[in-house]
C-alpha cells in the first residue's frame, strides 16, 4: 500500500493535471448547442492526435539497428499525423460551411 502512495507522491504533478483537466474538459463544452456536436467531436478527435508527440519520441529514440522499433515507430508517426492533419482539416471543412451560411444571411 505504501508503494502506491509513494507512486502518487512521485507523480503528483501529473496526477493533479489529470484531475484538473477532467473538470476543465467537462466545463469547457458544457453548453454546446446540438448543431455543433459533430464538429466539436471532430475537433476533439484532432486534439487527441497529440499522441503523435509520443510517436515522434519513440521514432527519434529508436536505435538505428532496431528494425522493429523503426518500423513500428514510423507507422505510429504516419498514423498519428493522419489523425492530427486529417482531423483538423475535416473539422475546418465542416465549420467552413457554417461560416459561409453566416455571410449569406
Amino acid at each position, binding site marked *: 500500500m505504501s*508503494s502506491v502512495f509513494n*507512486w502518487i507522491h*512521485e*507523480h503528483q504533478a501529473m496526477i493533479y*493535471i*489529470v484531475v484538473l*483537466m*477532467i*473538470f*476543465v*474538459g*467537462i466545463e*469547457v*463544452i*458544457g453548453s454546446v448547442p*446540438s*448543431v*455543433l*456536436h*459533430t464538429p*466539436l*467531436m471532430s*475537433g*476533439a*478527435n*484532432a*486534439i*487527441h492526435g*497529440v*499522441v*503523435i*508527440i*509520443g*510517436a*515522434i*519520441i*519513440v*521514432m*527519434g*529514440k*529508436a536505435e538505428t539497428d532496431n528494425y*522493429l522499433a523503426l518500423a513500428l515507430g514510423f*507507422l*505510429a*508517426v*504516419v*498514423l*498519428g*499525423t*493522419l489523425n492530427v*492533419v*486529417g482531423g*483538423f482539416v*475535416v473539422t*475546418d471543412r*465542416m*465549420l467552413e*460551411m457554417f*461560416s459561409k451560411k453566416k455571410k449569406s*444571411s
Partner: protein
Amino acid sequence: MEINILSFIYLLASVTFIVGLKMLSHPTTARKGNAVAAAGMTIAIFGTIFLYNDQGETLGNYGWIFGGLAIGTILGTLSAKRVKMTAMPEMVSLFNGMGGACAALISIVEFDHLMHLDGMSGLLMVLAGSAAVQGFLLIILLGLIIGSVSFAGSMVAWGKLNGSLRDFSFRGQQAFNIGLLLLILGLATYLIVALPSNALLLFYIIFGLSILYGIFFVFPIGGADMPVVISLLNSFTGVAAACGGFLYDNKVMLTGGILVGAAGTLLTILMCKAMNRSLTNVLIGAFGGNTATASAGPSQGAYKEISLSDAAVVMSYANKVMIVPGYGLAVAQAQHACHELEKILSAKGVEVSYAIHPVAGRMPGHMNVLLAEADVSYEKLLEMEQANEEFSTTDVVLILGANDVVNPAAKSDPASPIYGMPILDVELAKHVIVNKRSMKPGYAGIENDLFFRPKTSMLFGDAKKVLQDLISEVKNS
C-alpha cells in the same frame, strides 16, 4: 536552454487546446477555435522534433520522422479534402482509429524496448514488484488496451457507416464481451504483478484480445447509434494519448489526452440526451439485433401516392411549406436541388423553411452542415422546438428521406425502440408529402405509422431526381 523553451511551448500548446475546445463549442468562434488548436499542435510537434532532450539524449532518425510526417500530412489532407459531406462521420471514425493505433504502437515499442535492454532484464527481474516498474507497466498496458480497443472499434464503426459491414450479434454476446474484458484485465494484472519470463508473449496475447474486444464491443450496436459510439471511442483515444503523457512525463500529451477524454465523455452523454436515451441503452442496444416489429397491426394499411404534378401544385399554392430533411437527402446529394426548390417556391410567394431534428441524418448537426453547403440561409433552419410550434400553421410538410425523426410511434407506442425520443410533429400540418425511395423502414428498422395516415401521401424516388422533377413542375404550374 532548449528544454526550457520546449516546456514553454508545451504550456502554450496546452492552453491552445483548452481555448480551442472552448471556442469550438460556440457557433461564432468555432472555426477560429479549430485553427487555434491546430496552431498549438503544430508548435508542439516541431518543438518536440528540434528541442526534445531527455538527460542529454536528443532525437535522431530525422529522415524517418519527416518522412512519416510528410506521408501522413499528404494522405490526411487529401482524404479529408476529398471526402463527401455525407461521409464525414466515417472519416472522423477512421482518423480516430489511427490515433488509437498510434497509441497502441507506442506501447508495443516501449514494452519491447523494456524487455530487450541487455542487462536491464536482470535488473528488471530484481525490480519486478517495485512500484516504479509496476506503475510503468500499468501505463504501457493501459495505453495498449485502450488504444487497441479504440482502433478496432473505430474500424468497425467506419465499416458500418460506409455500409461494408452489417450489424452482427449472437446470443450471449454481452456475457461474452464482459468475459473477454475480464480476461484482458486479469492477464494484465498478472503481467504487472508477477512479470513472468514469457511476458512478451503475454503482452501480445493481451494486444490480440484487446483488438478482438474492440470488434465485439461495436459490432452489435446499431448503425444509427454509431455517432455516439464514435464519440465514446474518441474519448477512449484521448485517455490512451494521456497514457503516453505519463510514459514520457510529457505534460502536453497528458493535458490534450485527458481534456479530450473528459470532453468526449460529456459529449457522448449530451448526444444520448439529444436522442432522449441513456448511454447504457445505446451500448447494450435496443436498436441492434432486436428487430421485433410488435406493432405491425394497424400500420399495414394502405398508403396513397401522389403524382409529381399534384405535389408541385399543392406546394405552389400553399402559404407555408416546411421541408424536413433526413438522411435520404444526404445520400442523394440533393441539398442543392433542395435549395433550388426553396428559391422557386419563395419566388412564388410561398413561405419556405426547414425543420431540423437534432439527430436527423447520421450525426447531430449533419443537416445544418449539408444545407449550409448549398447556401441555404441560416434563418430558414428551424430547430425542433421552433418547428413544432410552426407546424399547426403549415400547409405542406415535405419530408425528404427522413423517417425515424417523424415517427409518431416515439410518442404513442411504449413498445417501440424509439419510444420517448422527441420527434417533429409533422402531423399538425394540413398535408404531409413523404419522399422515400421505397416503403422500407428507416435506420432503426421499425415501421412508420405516419405513412399510412390519411393526411400523408407518398412520393417515391431518389430525393435528387424527385426534387429536380418537382422544380420543373413548379416552374410550369
